[in-house]
């Protein structure tokens, strides 16, 4: 272990954590503003200019509330659960490359060679926070939320995993930095034909890639409990679902976990399908630290756009019914993702080298 590596890693971790927490608090603000604009309202605009200090006010409000524990709750697991909900969502971001290089240091905390599996494995642990929270509250609505959450996560993790396999069939490597490098050379996966307009195989490849993107995006919605699939917390049916009994900072942690999961999900989507930190015409960080900074800015801008899509969808679509959700997951997305893999494998086997 050399000291340079340790110090740069610590710096990266600290700054990335700060950025993520900052983004979480402003994602809450953005969610409220976006929802308001979509519903022809104004949203929070009182605290600070255009309401920009609202997250700070929210934080103080949540900190000062009474931290209430129901008498019949299982105290240890009740306190443990919110932490379990937050930690996986934040850990996952470690393997996502958020920039090219800055002063020769690669802008990724841990460039492990099983990148995408790391993301799936750790984010699948996030369900424990919800399940344990619902169970430890010892109350019927949180419990129903927890049960729904566990079944939903299991169903959609399959489609999530299968949907990205085409990407890795093309890249031939599970490392997320290689995915970005591949996209820089061959065009973003969302539009595989870019840069090679004359090649009919590229156009053929674009079809399964877009299917893959759609399935992955929908599965991410289900994974992060966002609105068409927010059955675990369904306010109208379950009075808030798994977090009904929580208050004060514990509730805030659940909130933080949900938004952190959303940000991580967006970052993964950007890395896999939107070319990560790459923007056509901008070189990477080896050509100067200015470009390194621009790459980072490009990445976070893309993440912000995907987060906006998350919010936009949330305030457009109604919630699925429970049986519809399960039927969609098992009888529809699973099959589509599976067939999609064969499509891409066929194109790779019989087509020219892409």
């Amino acid at each position, binding site marked *: 272990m050399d000291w340079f590596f340790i110090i740069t890693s610590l710096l990266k971790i600290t700054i990335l954590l700060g950025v993520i927490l900052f983004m979480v608090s402003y994602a809450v603000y953005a969610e409220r503003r976006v929802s308001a604009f979509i519903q022809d309202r104004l949203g929070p605009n009182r605290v600070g200019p255009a309401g920009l200090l609202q997250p700070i006010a929210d934080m103080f409000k949540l900190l000062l509330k009474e931290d209430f524990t129901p008498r019949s709750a299982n105290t240890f697991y009740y306190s443990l659960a919110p932490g379990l909900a937050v930690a996986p969502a934040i850990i996952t971001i470690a393997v996502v490359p958020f920039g090219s290089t800055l002063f020769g240091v690669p802008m990724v905390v841990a460039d492990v060679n*099983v990148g995408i599996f790391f993301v799936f494995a750790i984010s*699948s*642990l996030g369900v*424990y926070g919800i*399940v344990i929270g619902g169970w430890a509250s010892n109350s019927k609505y949180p419990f129903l939320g927890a*049960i729904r959450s566990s079944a939903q996560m299991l169903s959609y*993790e399959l489609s999530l995993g299968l949907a990205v396999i085409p990407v890795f069939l093309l890249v031939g490597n599970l*490392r997320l930095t290689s995915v970005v490098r591949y996209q820089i050379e061959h065009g973003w996966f969302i539009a595989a034909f870019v840069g090679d307009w004359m090649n009919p195989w590229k156009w053929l490849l674009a079809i399964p890639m877009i299917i893959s993107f759609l399935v992955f995006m929908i599965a991410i919605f289900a994974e992060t409990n966002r609105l068409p699939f927010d059955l675990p917390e369904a306010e109208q049916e379950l009075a808030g679902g798994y977090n009904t009994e929580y208050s004060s900072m514990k509730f805030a942690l659940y909130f933080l976990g949900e938004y952190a999961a959303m940000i991580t999900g967006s970052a993964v989507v950007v890395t896999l399908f939107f070319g990560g930190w790459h923007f056509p015409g901008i070189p990477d960080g080896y050509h100067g630290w200015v470009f390194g900074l621009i790459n980072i800015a490009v990445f976070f801008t893309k993440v912000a756009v995907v987060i906006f899509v998350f919010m936009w969808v949330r305030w457009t679509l109604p919630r699925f019914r429970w049986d519809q959700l399960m039927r969609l997951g098992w009888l529809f997305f699973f099959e589509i993702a599976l067939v999609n893999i064969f499509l891409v494998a066929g194109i790779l086997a019989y087509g020219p080298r892409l």
Partner: protein
Amino acid sequence: MSPFLFWLFASLTLIFGAAVVLNPNPVASALSLVASFLGLSALFMSLDAFFIGIIQVLVYAGAVMVLFLFIIMLLDLRAEERRRINWLAAAGGFGVAVILLVQICVVIVHFQAAKQTFPPLARPTSADVWNIGQLLFMNYNLPFQVIGVLVLVATVGVVLLSRREPR
């Protein structure tokens, strides 16, 4: 790899493994098992076997144990917590464990290859996943396919068993 990390993760795995058996509360047992899996996967990763380590988390901690919890939470836990420990059975189980430990120790003492230190692991030249794919689809293709058929048969069997009888 630092011996400190090895001892940390090994002891975590063992402590939580013991907690699985000793906890009166089934949910707590299941969560201890998850923690034990995490320790095990950390041990795999410290041996540079990232793929196995992460699959351990993804499959066992992320999917199988969630299913377990799902079932356990639907049970009546109060009855389980009131259960008395059968001391005779506990003593028997402990005895078997001690015998196994003694056996392992004896075998290791007589194991010649363990006398000298192992050479350091060769750095892998290709990615884990590529190696595993090579092994599964080139060297062990037939057993792999046969296992697939077996699992399919088991799935069909489960569907058949859990299907409601038509009236």
